[in-house]
């Protein structure tokens, strides 16, 4: 008797072809698209990046963090800091933002991992508050009121001149195109990295730890190592996204950069509504999120009430989200991670 292990499905092969077409199209999109469409897509890509990282933490790792705004704020402030205090160009400063978030994740994980189960969430939230309060004391970066990127830095940003010549356009439009491209690269790399991680042995270990800690230990998985790895990579990705978001905004304040609603509540609702524990879910979720936003945008409070109610409703009646409802009936998986066994009939006959 022999068997083969398969991960690919027909749908996943089609998804690869789809991505191979969509990604190049997305890259040349600034040639045709309006500026407002690019700004909307920038928003979608950055929110999707945040949602994917949170989903990796909560949906795959079982680490429900309500303090991801710590890494957004830290990444954004580190970006502003390197630009304002060290005179760096904003584009490489984004990387500094990711690294700063990674460094913040070390003490955060040290404290939050001491807290069992649901109290982990509270631990991450406390650290986010401490970071916000501490950064609000940093007078050189505007203290509690915040600050803006200096005009000289935004005007002479890397690549902007090239884009201006290439597209024959104004500096402000060129900046939006640059931000759009960076967001596109970030979201593609994020999804690719997470999918790759889940397909490796580490991804399997991660799911094992989430599903049954004792059983995972008994087959030789080190749950601590895998938790640290997940938490640190999510912090790095979230920090990069935070720095990029605030590079585009060019203005920062502690209350905005460390906002629970903007960077954690929205992200949680996107993941929950779309389908937690799948890569497809957040993609679907961010589209629903944008749709609701365009309908209810002028009613700030009603928008949040609706999102919250949908989120609660989904958790109660369809805990696997919209994507879960879809796959329950069709079995479609665009990013399969399960290893499925198939009997190899030919071989078994020969033997």
């Amino acid at each position, binding site marked *: 008797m022999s068997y083969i292990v398969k991960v690919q499905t027909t749908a996943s092969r089609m998804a690869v072809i789809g991505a191979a077409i969509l990604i190049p199209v997305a890259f040349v999109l600034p040639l045709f698209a309006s500026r407002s469409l690019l700004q909307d897509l920038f928003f979608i890509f950055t929110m999707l990046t945040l949602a994917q990282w949170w989903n990796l933490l909560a949906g795959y790792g079982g680490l*429900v963090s309500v303090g991801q705004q710590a890494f957004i704020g830290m990444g954004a402030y580190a970006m502003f800091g390197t630009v304002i205090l060290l005179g760096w160009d904003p584009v490489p400063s984004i990387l500094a933002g990711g690294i700063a978030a990674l460094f913040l994740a070390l003490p955060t994980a040290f404290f939050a991992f001491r807290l069992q189960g649901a*109290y982990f969430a*509270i631990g991450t939230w*406390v650290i986010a508050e401490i970071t916000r309060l501490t950064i609000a004391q940093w007078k050189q970066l505007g203290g509690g009121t915040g600050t803006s990127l200096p005009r000289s830095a935004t005007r002479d940003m890397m690549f902007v001149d090239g884009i201006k010549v290439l597209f024959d356009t104004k500096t402000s439009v060129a900046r939006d195109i640059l931000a759009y491209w960076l967001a596109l690269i970030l979201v593609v790399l994020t999804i690719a990295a997470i999918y790759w991680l889940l397909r490796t042995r580490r991804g399997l270990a991660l799911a094992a730890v989430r599903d049954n800690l004792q059983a995972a230990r008994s087959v030789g998985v080190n749950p601590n190592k895998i938790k640290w790895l997940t938490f640190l990579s999510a912090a790095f990705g979230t920090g990069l996204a935070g720095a990029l978001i605030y590079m585009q905004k060019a203005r920062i304040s502690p209350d905005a950069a460390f906002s629970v609603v903007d960077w954690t509540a929205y992200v949680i609702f996107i993941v929950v509504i779309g389908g937690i524990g799948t890569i497809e879910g957040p993609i679907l979720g961010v589209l629903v999120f944008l749709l609701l936003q365009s309908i209810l945008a002028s009613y700030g409070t009603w928008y949040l009430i609706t999102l*919250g109610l949908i989120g*609660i409703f989904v958790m109660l009646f369809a805990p696997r989200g919209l994507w879960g409802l879809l796959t329950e009936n069709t079995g479609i998986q665009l990013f399969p991670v399960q290893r499925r066994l198939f009997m190899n009939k030919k071989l078994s006959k020969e033997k």
Partner: protein
Amino acid sequence: MIFLDSLIQGILLGGLYALFAAGLSLVFGIMRLVNLAHGDLIVFGAYLILLLVSLLNLNVFVATLVAAPFMFVLGWILQKFILNRVLGDDILPPLLVTFGLSIVMQNVLLETWSADSKRLSAGALETASLTIGPINVGIMPLLIFISAIVVILVLNLIIYHTSLGRAFRATSDDPVTASLMGIKPKNIFSVATGLAMIVAIIAALYLGVRSNFDPSIGPARLIYAFEAVIIGGLGSLWGTLLGGIIIGVAQTVGATINPEWQILSGHIAFLLVLMVRPRGLLPRAFD
């Protein structure tokens, strides 16, 4: 002298945090539920008292008494129809549902009451003070602290000396065995959340009398309450009071050094205790 003064203020402030936290501690002890909407439920309670005061022209204390049964029913319904459905081995659903509830409640309150800050008035009691030796102590903070002790005494009395409390403890230890003995864990959970909401309305009264409140302050207050529960040790109500006092003292002492450090020093004290005693100061439950 300033330090002694801020120490006493801090201890009294800790009573308020313990009141915020007692409901959380009770609910966590019995069903391992972390309710992220607890702070918003307290703020809702404060608005409910305000509504009763302005509609029926009641005294705030009487209004709290009137509101208490209503809050019990609200908690009971919340548990029975929403939270009981998501309780289980997976910690994700209850966290996400209560998080959603928190966002919904904040925005419903914002829509109905606007963002203007409000206050409950307790009349002359608010400014009255007592002179003990060289120290002046406000009657109101003292009353809050005493209320916290009374609430914890009553809760402990219920938990350790009544049949309801026996059911609480049995369900907390082992819900499956408890249900073999004729206890319905889900009904017990509903009663417990109802009880937690009665504690919440007491917390709401003092929240509104002591400082201004608006629809968005729930989470900020909740975080101190969670810190008190965690460093006190999960499942111990006296531990929660101790935790509240530590946070309160750290805040007032921090504020005397530099007003901007008030909140920060509370959080730092939390981390320090967590570093030294990961399971809290007076842990009861092992899980």
